[in-house]
């Protein structure tokens, strides 16, 4: 278990020594999000023109105003939403790249601890492992799709015709069981992903099958689960605090924005520390 704690500590050390990586990931997140809302901004500016109702909507959610915008200036909504989805897709690629960059960098730094760190190394390492990482992500995505399909089959095994049901209670129970099951599967899925990625970086083989098989064997090891949990616990606590704060405070927009950015930064930190600690652990 000491290896788990040691790996976790090293994950934080890595973050501390490579703060610029955190900055890059955050800035790219912000940039992509900014670009994604561009069409929405143009659309809203043209819809509101110079209507003071824009201010009312800015202050709080207002269904009437939103629906009047959609009903009277509707065409832009679809365009704006499709742009959001496009950027989500791009970000999935970017997150594979950042995982590759972080893990590659951890390995590089372990091999040459005295070299000066240059940010470009993060991008080089990211490029080296990106496609292999992406393949892991695609396998995982495919697995989740199969799991969800099976879950749906289970959920609807007695049909979905409401008139056949005695009551909806069993549907709800089934739904919650499946949600919990999916969370467990996603938990082990993420352990698999991070260990598989670690093996890919450590062994640096073009074929990732061996890494995946080794990772599959490692996901039920207590230490892997412990490392994943140690990483997750602070995230869960901070998420809970964030949602609590958001509900309790009726803060002005700028304060809300800053709190949200701090929370986002922490989520990125979680991802970096997790990647680094899993590589340390697997190595």
């Amino acid at each position, binding site marked *: 278990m000491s290896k788990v704690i040691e790996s976790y500590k090293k994950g934080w050390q890595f973050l501390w020594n490579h703060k610029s990586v955190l900055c890059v990931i955050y800035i790219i997140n912000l940039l992509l999000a900014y670009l994604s809302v561009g069409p929405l901004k143009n659309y809203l500016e043209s819809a*509101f023109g110079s209507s003071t109702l824009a201010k009312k909507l800015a202050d709080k959610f207002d269904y009437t105003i939103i629906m009047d915008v959609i009903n009277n200036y509707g065409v832009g909504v679809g365009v704006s939403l499709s742009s959001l989805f496009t950027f989500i897709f791009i970000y999935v690629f970017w997150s594979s790249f950042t995982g590759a960059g972080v893990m590659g960098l951890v390995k590089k730094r372990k091999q040459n601890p005295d070299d000066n760190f240059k940010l470009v190394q993060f991008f080089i390492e990211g490029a080296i492992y990106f496609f292999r990482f992406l393949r892991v992500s695609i396998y995982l995505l495919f697995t989740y799709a199969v799991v969800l399909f099976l879950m749906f089959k289970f959920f609807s095994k007695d049909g979905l015709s409401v008139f056949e049901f005695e009551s909806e209670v069993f549907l709800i129970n089934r739904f919650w069981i499946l949600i919990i099951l999916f969370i467990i599967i996603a938990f082990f899925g993420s352990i698999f992903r991070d260990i598989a990625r670690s093996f890919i970086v450590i062994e640096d083989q073009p074929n990732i099958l061996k890494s995946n098989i080794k990772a599959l064997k490692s996901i039920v090891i207590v230490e892997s689960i412990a490392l994943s949990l140690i990483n997750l616990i602070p995230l869960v606590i901070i998420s809970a605090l964030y949602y609590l704060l958001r509900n309790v405070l009726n803060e002005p*927009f700028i304060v809300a924005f800053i709190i949200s950015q701090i929370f986002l930064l922490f989520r990125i930190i979680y991802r970096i520390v997790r990647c680094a600690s899993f590589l340390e652990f697997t190595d």
Partner: protein
Amino acid sequence: MVFCLGTIQAQQPALSNRVANYNMDINLDTETKKLNCSTILTWTNPSADTISELYFHLYYNAFKNANSTFFKERGVPDWLTSDIDETCGWAYSHVSNFKDDAENDLSASLEYVQPDDNNPDDQTVLKVTLAKPVMPYQTQKFTFDWEAKIPKTMPRTGYNKDFFFFAQWFPKVGVYEPAGMRFAEEGQWNCHQYHSSGEYYSDFGNYEVKMNVPSNFIVASSGVNVGIEKKGERKIWHFSGHDIIDFTWTCSPHYIINEDNYKQTNIRLYTYSYKDHLKERYFPTIKFCMQFLDEHLGTYPYKTLSIVDPPIHGMFTGGMEYPTIITSLSFCFFPEGIKTPETLVVHEFIHQYFMQMVATHEVEETWMDEGITTYYEGRILDAYMGEHTSTIDVLGFKCGNKEFNRAEYFSSDSRKLAPNSAKSWHYKHGGYGDIAYNKTALWLQTLEGLLGVELMDALMKKYFQTWKFKHPSRNDFIAIFNEGVKEALPEKYPNGLDWFFQQVLFGTNECDYKVKSITNTESEAPRGFINNLDDCSAVAATLKKYNSQVIFQRDGEITVPQNLQIIFEDGSSQFFSWDGQERSFDVSVATDLKIVEARVDPEGIIMMDRNLINNYMTVQPVSGSVRKIVGKVLTKMQHLMESISLLI
């Protein structure tokens, strides 16, 4: 053995003219899904005419086969009838042994007629030719037997598993309209076929109904339960309903009953055990609603109100109104923020006033029933649960009842398919819900805005009090409002409100006013010959700094008087009125302060205005506000992207 539940209804003074009175003995066969019934109809001729025919609704024949008008109008969605053939979910209603009080057997005269569409396959209206006419204002008794096969999961009625719901189910006599009543120029029967939309129009009367059901079944019904008699494996439930226009009942072995009271009314909630917790939502809501209507319109005079929340396999009966019994619709997992149960009980209870007590014709004038109900639904729910939270309040998504219905109306592309005055079956290609419900609610809200809520309430109360236990038409509604405004607002509306009703009831036009532009031009000294012909040089004059102008525009076809507001840079305001007739209207002022903002309808009283965004204009840029809105979306997007990358 006979024992009584509650008190037997004391003989009350009649609230209505009690034209159609029924005594029914019903036997329910839960195995064959059949009803057998013997009926005594005591019918009074309400006119000076001699009546030699009776007309009856046989609603269950709408489900006899796919050739009925109801089916042809696509009244039965496919998802309701996916197993209709394999389970033989079809139904019928068959009348036999029809006799008058002289024991004349009239069965041979029974004939199906189709007054609306000449569809020969439609058997939802039965004509009986009388051997002994009913003389003016005289009463005659008729007896008949009647057998029905109960439909399976049809709209509003039928059975599924061991849940039974009987709505629009018994042979119900039509309404004889004497000359001068509603639109009748001479005495006439009003008995439409059963159409896919709209049901109600019947005469008031008393109902004495005995239901013979298996002993483990619990019955909920219109009227008051005055006794239960046990007979072997069966029980006979006796219900008595006075001064009501229809009679509906339901039974199931699984009902549990919760009770509460509002004044003299015993409220009973019939539901299944896994939904028992919803009583905490139903009772406070219904009591608030009853109090609101009590104060605003008049007292609910009946001793009972039954609320049925059907099980999931009985949801085809949910969200309906019947005399003294209403149905809701819920799922046991509904969070508090989804206000469907509250919305439905409020809506359906309002129908006790509009369609049941004020017995309008839902088929011919749907808006007087569903539209007025939707208007009060908005008022009551917004008052009870907040104007931005009374429909949904979940995870930051908030929406009030009035705003939900308004948005639903303006989102519909069927909203101009017919005027409000259309009959229910004329909404052939859609628009029924949008127009009959939501459009009416919108223009009633607008009327409330124009008249002020106090006058609106006073006139609605007058309408209710004048027409309760009667059959008004739109002309009666309009007359109450015309007289009322001429009296209360003679200067504002000297000719009444015909101009308003003409537009909203009989037309499909829409309303949209906007602020077109604001200009602040710096004043210039007058030039040319001003004071005399000897000197054309500029004269010194006391000038205001700006000549400012705001142009207002009417983009819609509907015209409504508008209040206008202009706001100066120091925050002060000036108000103007515009009759709203012309296509555009300007307000020009000489001022030392720039106009920074202009509003048409600043109080937001014209809720039928299609676009509220353009009612408000400022000369200051709104980009800061847009940035703030976009900023909120941006942070959500940031977190969403990060969440997805967490998973894969």
